[in-house]
């Protein structure tokens, strides 16, 4: 039997200008053109601070692909809201650094490539700091 398609979550990062507007708009447009079902949230940070129960629903609904920012931050935001994302079933696409084409294509390809950092997988030397 084939695996159910992962759910899709898109974060609009409404209350900061850290995600380029052209990237988030292009990703949202791509989702709208695809006709797939998806969840769109204005600001995951705000939902995490409010401990919105929608985050727990999403985290427990099986495999999920998320377009937002850094995977480490998204993992922490879910945890802090009382809902842990499944380490083996969540892929976070980073609209702060990836292109809209890359994020859009990955969101819609139906395959989850889990990439949340964990104690065991986090490299000690990572990308050079972007300061």
């Amino acid at each position, binding site marked *: 039997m084939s695996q159910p398609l992962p759910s899709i979550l898109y974060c609009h990062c409404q209350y900061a200008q850290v995600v380029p507007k052209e990237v988030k708009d292009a990703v949202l447009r791509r989702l709208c053109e695809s006709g797939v079902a998806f969840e769109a949230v204005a600001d995951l940070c705000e939902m995490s601070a409010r401990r919105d129960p929608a985050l727990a629903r999403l985290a427990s609904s099986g495999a999920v692909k998320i377009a937002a920012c850094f995977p480490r931050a998204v993992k922490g935001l879910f945890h802090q809201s009382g809902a842990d994302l499944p380490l083996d079933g969540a892929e976070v696409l980073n609209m702060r650094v990836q292109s809209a084409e890359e994020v859009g294509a990955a969101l819609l390809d139906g395959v989850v490539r889990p990439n949340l950092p964990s104690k065991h997988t986090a490299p000690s030397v990572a990308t050079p*700091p972007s300061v």
Partner: protein
Amino acid sequence: MSLAPALHVVLYEGSGAEPLSADERFGALSTLLEQGYAISRTSVSTVEKPEQGALLVLGKFRATPPATDTGVRFHNLANLAPAQLADLVETARAEADAPRHGAWKPWFPVIDYDRCTNCMQCLSFCLFGVYGVDGEKRIQVQNNDNCKTNCPACSRVCPEAAIMFPKYKAGPINGDLVSDADLAKEKMKVDISALLGGDVYAMLRLRSEKAKSRFSKERDSDKALSERQKCLIKLAAAGDIPPEVLMSLPSPEEIVRRAAEAQAKAAAALAEQ
């Protein structure tokens, strides 16, 4: 910040409703996201009402939908301009007594528990009671809204680079991976005792005393205040603590009192570990 459940919106394109064009979908979603809402876009014909909070279902319904049905509101989207859509959702939010979005910039620390060693430096550093401990004496962010917007100061004192502010401009504070070079950076290892008892607060105290004596001599409160401002702005320029955050610090005496209180809390939590 209210923890009351938010209004959830469904963009419905299941049976009984016309499908939207991609442009209509994008327009409606953009309008609602800018208003701070969370939206499910669905074409299945059942809509699940969340356990908590109100639900508004929007669609181009073929027949007039019921205004409400078992707590779920329906509204026809056909021919609505973006401003009308924004008004309609705002009315539904107010009627459902759901919290308003956007009044507070969601700026607060997020702990990376894969890195955190529970050393309590953040708890003893923060003067605004943002941190606390859970039942197992594990560090926790307890009061998000006490955090000073745009101030990432506590992330500078964490020796493990375990404190993130996802809306910060640069890594690793924004959640980017932590490199060995980041850990080695001097600014990551601010000497907490200097911050709490020494340099910064001592300087503030001194300046404030000078300002006070000048105030009593000159009876010029504006001048005393501008002195204090100048000193604070200098401090802000030295690190990246926004001047408005430094301006909102309590009096030097109160700083010392709160620092002692926070340190005692941290010491008690550490003693019980």
